[in-house]
């Protein structure tokens, strides 16, 4: 037997071996060398655009997807999808579509999650990306083997034997909205507590007394849906936020904002205009009992919700402060008040998770925050990159597209012109973080990957140009 084991890499088994030994050979191969091919982890929006752009640069691509279809977070059939029935885009269509594959111009300004999924499915079919995807296959570990190459261990999602393959590069596109961040609230609670990831349908809210914890876009959305369905709604936020409407002056608000950026209106003036416009339209939210924002406009991830102020004004949503504990049937609030919800939904967001990677590879700090150049390139491993790990005042798809264009050209340059690649790397290491990362934000985990889209895209464009010039 041992003799057979050592010869499994070659296909010449001794002819006298029993039949079952022949059958076992393909199931337990040695490390299969995929040579110049690149491995992509995940076939959501970021993974799909990574496949497309890597193939455009001439790479062979193997993409591993744990689910059996594309679309990642936007595919409501997937276990880990955070999508609920009422999910709509919060950035408008032109700011959300892939720059080289526009959404149909007959679609609404803010498409819903079904349209977004069908868009991703069409993108995948249009460019034939499915050919490169191994569905129902999970990446178990990604480990460097020196000279920039990687051993990727995969396993069928249903279990079964694992398989190791060697790649010239790895692009991680596993998303960052699937591993729920659950707050630790002390005490026992008699009612039901769920994370917003488990909230799927407004029927879950009907006639109940609902407490929604979290002032992000999801929290506000669910509070609004609860206002339409539930018997009573409390919305708990730790601080005051700037709630931007979806429309301003008859146009999607993000398009108005970008017009100001186009006209190079300075930040101070934009902040002043923002306050004025909100004061003149939505009005002062503190009169409903919301705390005043503790930060200036543009210093937190934008929260876009036109309906929250509407339902506050109709008394359907009662704003409450932070929840400090549970006590039997009641939730104890920071101001000492007690309320008695029967359903608590924690819309407290998600944490990035890379359980198949050694934290050192992404320069991940103790608190779980990876340190990546342009939020994409591993600093110590030039053939390892992450796509889609950004948060912006903009759609994610275009940012993921340009990230993957940069990653693909970078990997190509390393092959065709290692000397210039080294020079580019040298130059990039001098690019100040403040030039592409938004620094003046409320210091919470929510803002780890926050960027301003114009600064960020200009930085990526700078890298693309460096890689071009001789």
């Amino acid at each position, binding site marked *: 037997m041992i003799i057979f084991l050592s010869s499994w890499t070659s296909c010449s088994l001794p002819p006298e071996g029993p039949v079952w030994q022949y059958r076992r050979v393909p199931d337990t191969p040695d490390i299969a060398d995929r040579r110049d091919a690149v491995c992509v982890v995940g076939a959501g929006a970021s993974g799909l655009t990574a496949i497309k752009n890597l193939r455009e640069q001439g790479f062979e691509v193997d993409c591993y997807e744990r689910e059996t279809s594309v679309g990642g977070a936007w595919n409501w059939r997937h276990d880990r999808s955070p999508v609920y029935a009422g999910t709509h885009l919060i950035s408008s*269509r*032109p700011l959300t579509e892939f720059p080289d594959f526009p959404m149909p*111009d*007959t679609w609404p300004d803010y498409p819903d999650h079904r349209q977004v999924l069908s868009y991703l499915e069409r993108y995948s079919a*249009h460019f*034939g990306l499915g050919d490169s995807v191994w569905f129902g296959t999970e990446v178990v570990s990604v480990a460097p083997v020196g000279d920039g190459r990687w051993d990727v261990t995969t396993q069928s999602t249903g279990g079964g034997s694992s398989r190791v393959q060697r790649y010239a590069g790895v692009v991680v596109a596993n998303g960052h909205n699937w591993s729920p961040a659950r707050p630790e609230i002390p005490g026992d609670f008699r009612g039901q507590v769920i994370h917003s990831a488990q909230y799927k349908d407004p029927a879950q809210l009907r006639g109940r007394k609902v407490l929604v914890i979290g002032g992000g876009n999801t929290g506000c959305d669910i509070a609004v849906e609860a206002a339409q369905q539930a018997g009573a709604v409390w919305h708990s936020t730790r601080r005051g936020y700037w709630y931007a409407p979806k429309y301003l002056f008859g146009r999607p608000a993000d398009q108005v904002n970008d017009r100001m950026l186009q006209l190079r209106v300075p930040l101070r003036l934009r902040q002043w205009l923002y306050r004025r416009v909100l004061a003149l339209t939505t009005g002062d939210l503190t009169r409903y009992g919301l705390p005043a924002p503790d930060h200036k406009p543009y210093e937190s991830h934008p929260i876009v919700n036109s309906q929250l102020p509407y339902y506050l004004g109709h008394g359907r949503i009662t704003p409450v402060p932070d929840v400090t504990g549970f006590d039997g049937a009641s939730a104890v609030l920071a101001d000492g008040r007690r309320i008695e919800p029967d359903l608590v939904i924690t819309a407290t967001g998600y944490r990035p998770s890379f359980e198949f990677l050694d934290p050192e590879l992404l320069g991940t700090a103790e608190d779980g925050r990876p340190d990546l150049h342009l939020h994409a390139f591993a600093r110590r491993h030039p053939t390892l990159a992450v796509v889609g790990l950004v948060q912006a005042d903009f759609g994610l798809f275009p940012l993921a597209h340009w990230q993957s264009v940069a990653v693909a050209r970078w990997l190509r340059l390393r092959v065709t012109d290692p000397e210039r690649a080294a020079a580019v790397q040298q130059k990039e290491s001098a690019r100040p973080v403040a030039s592409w990362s938004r620094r003046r934000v409320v210091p919470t985990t929510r803002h780890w990957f926050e960027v301003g889209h114009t600064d960020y895209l*200009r930085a990526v*464009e700078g890298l693309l140009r460096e890689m071009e010039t001789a």
Partner: protein
Amino acid sequence: MKSELVRFEDWTDPVRAVEREVVSLTDGARGDRPPLLFVPGLGHGAWAFAEHWLPRAAERGFAAHALTPRAGGDLRAQVHDVVQVAASLPRQAVLVGHGTGALVVAYAMGRYPARAGVLAAPVLDGWPTLWAALRANPFGTLPALFGGRLRMSREQLFGPAMPAEQARPILDRVAAKPGRELVTHGPVPRPAGDPPVLVAGSPDDRVVPRASLDRTATRYGGAPLLFPGMGHDLMLDVTWSEPIEAVLDWLDKELPSAGQ
């Protein structure tokens, strides 16, 4: 330098949607061949391709589509329409532009990673084309400079072999009001995704000067495929089958997965 990534115009002032006329022949299309999208030039519509080229492409197993440019649309709107239609097709499309439609295709390729591009009798250099038109057909061209209608002559669109009775209805149908930007536009962008590009034309074309044809081909790193004796309207002239057969042969050769 204008940013390729920061596209304020698209973000803040998206082109308005209109109903688009697309003529499609998809019967008998083979799954392994990319769809073709034909883009007509000034004064022409999808009809110009529906006549001969669409059926021939369909016979050879390609899903063939032709788009009529929107009425009164500027260059930006026309590029938008081409990219919209291309992205609506089930597979990555080959863009085929004729005349000023080739200019639209050249811009659309800067946006959309076409499977391949074909520029037939391309009007990519505005000024030389304008001079050539003024020389070949001064009375038909001059009014267009002052916002009037552009009238094309038989000598411009067709070779000498084209019978007059066949040319007349086409000339009557060609109605064009060229916009200033056909002449004043900047250099065309680099095609996204680096697709193979074929430039085809006629040395006897009275609209696109030979030198301009060579310049366009050089810009895309090749030499033009020439069809002597033909006029500007390669898809309607009597020997229309020669250019389309050559284009389809080129596609079969250039896109290996498409030929199997």
